[in-house]
């Protein structure tokens, strides 16, 4: 028997050391919101300025950002976070006594209401505030411009990104034509542009550290900013782009599509169970990897 409750979960929470109240946010969420704390311009943050004045820090993330591990019960109706460091060893959750816990026993009856909204769709992070192109590029409006990045599913497929080749600032990009290249452990992927426009900004941080795309695809790992050509913004509401609940169901279907593509000896099978293996490369031949990249990321128009 397990000596620790299987529903005891650990999560990384972030908070601001300079702010008078300790307000904790899941680190994942901070990434999703493209929080100032994680960007180079955290020096613009009023709390930072108040503490540090105009002094410049060489760090890429805010020096006042603190990350702490907390422990909570996944099934208890109220999510109560306890710092991992304060957790007592004789707590029922960490001993065999978890069996008698009422929250745990509810599972025993098998009556669980359908899960509430989740930021994860079949194991992948989905940012509800961006548009998705079907080639797994996300787009977000930022003062008249569009910021583009690779979604979580896309970065998972690529695996370890060693280098990204971005277009030049001021360059013209054309829908369906090559936009950028990812050099990865398994090979190179060439991604087409989802729209027409002019490149007005690129993420310089990726030159030093392209793993930001893997770590924080919707935040620090953004790719470039584009001034869209006339009429392009209106296209965001068309079929090729997805938003909100449409994006959710599309992502769910993309995961199923993986099973279609990864045909087995006995044709297409559907496997039902746990999460996708974190390290796709380890279970897949380079040829299969190439096929997946072609199917999901290098898709041509239509």
């Amino acid at each position: 028997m397990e000596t620790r409750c299987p529903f005891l979960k650990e999560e990384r929470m972030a908070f601001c050391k300079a702010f008078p109240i300790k307000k904790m946010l899941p680190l994942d969420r901070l990434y999703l919101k493209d929080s100032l704390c994680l960007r180079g311009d955290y020096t613009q943050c009023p709390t930072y300025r108040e503490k540090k004045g105009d002094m410049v820090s060489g760090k890429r993330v805010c020096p006042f950002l603190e990350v702490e591990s907390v422990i909570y019960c996944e099934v208890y109706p109220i999510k109560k976070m306890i710092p991992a460091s304060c957790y007592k060893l004789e707590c029922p959750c960490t001993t065999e006594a978890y069996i008698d816990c009422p929250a745990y026993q509810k599972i025993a009856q098998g009556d669980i209401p359908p899960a509430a909204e989740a930021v994860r769709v079949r194991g992948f992070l989905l940012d509800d505030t961006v548009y998705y192109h079907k080639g797994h590029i996300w787009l977000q409006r930022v003062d008249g411009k569009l910021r583009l990045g690779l979604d979580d599913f896309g970065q998972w497929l690529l695996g370890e990104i060693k280098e990204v080749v971005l277009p030049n600032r001021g360059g013209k990009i054309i829908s369906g034509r090559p936009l950028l290249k990812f050099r990865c452990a398994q090979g190179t992927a060439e991604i087409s542009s989802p729209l027409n426009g002019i490149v007005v900004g690129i993420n310089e941080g990726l030159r030093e550290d392209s793993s930001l795309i893997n770590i924080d695809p919707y935040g620090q790992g953004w790719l470039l900013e584009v001034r869209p050509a006339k009429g392009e913004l209106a296209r965001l509401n068309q079929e090729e782009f997805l938003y909100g609940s449409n994006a959710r169901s599309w992502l769910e279907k993309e995961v199923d599509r993986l099973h279609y593509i990864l045909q087995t000896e006995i044709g297409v099978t559907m496997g039902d169970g746990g999460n996708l293996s974190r390290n796709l490369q380890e279970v897949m031949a380079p040829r299969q990897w190439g096929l997946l990249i072609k199917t999901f990321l290098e898709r041509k128009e239509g």
Partner: protein
Amino acid sequence: MVLNYFQRKKERSKYIYILLIGDVEKLVNIGEVEKNLKKEFGFPTKILNSEINPEDSYDPMRNQYHSTKILKEMLDNLPSDALRMIGIIPLDLFIPILTFVFGEAQLGGKVGIVSLARLRQEFYGLPPNQSLLQRRLIKEINHELGHTFGLVHCSVRECVMSVANSIADVDSKGVSFCNSCRELLNRNRKELFNAI
């Protein structure tokens, strides 16, 4: 009784086989499974004790059994009167891209399999609960057979064809098909019935 050619042909493959791989009958009530299959799919059933050796599909690194390999063996040994075959196995299954599977099935094919390992309360350190295990098993069998009849995953959370990534997902979904899945199932079943 002498059957005419058409009847004989129809007779040929109309059973849904329940294949027991290992000591399944000790763990679950197969009679109930049969009753459910007749009700949901409308085909007669047959029970078969498997001669498949799961050890051929064992992965020592993962300490789990590769379910696609077992499906392949089921397919290689499919009885001629089997319309579909659903395997039940007490062992923990996996496919390479997933950390584990409750089950796997050919999409629009003949065979599917369900593992009892993670449907049992004992897996989570809980006291056994027979009726819950039975309910979970029937959900998973309906789901996997649904795949063999060409159904894909459904976004209706109550529908048995909705995705389950954890045991809580299995518990929160219903035993049966939503209206649109049911409709598709009936259409595909009818085509099959006309074909045999």
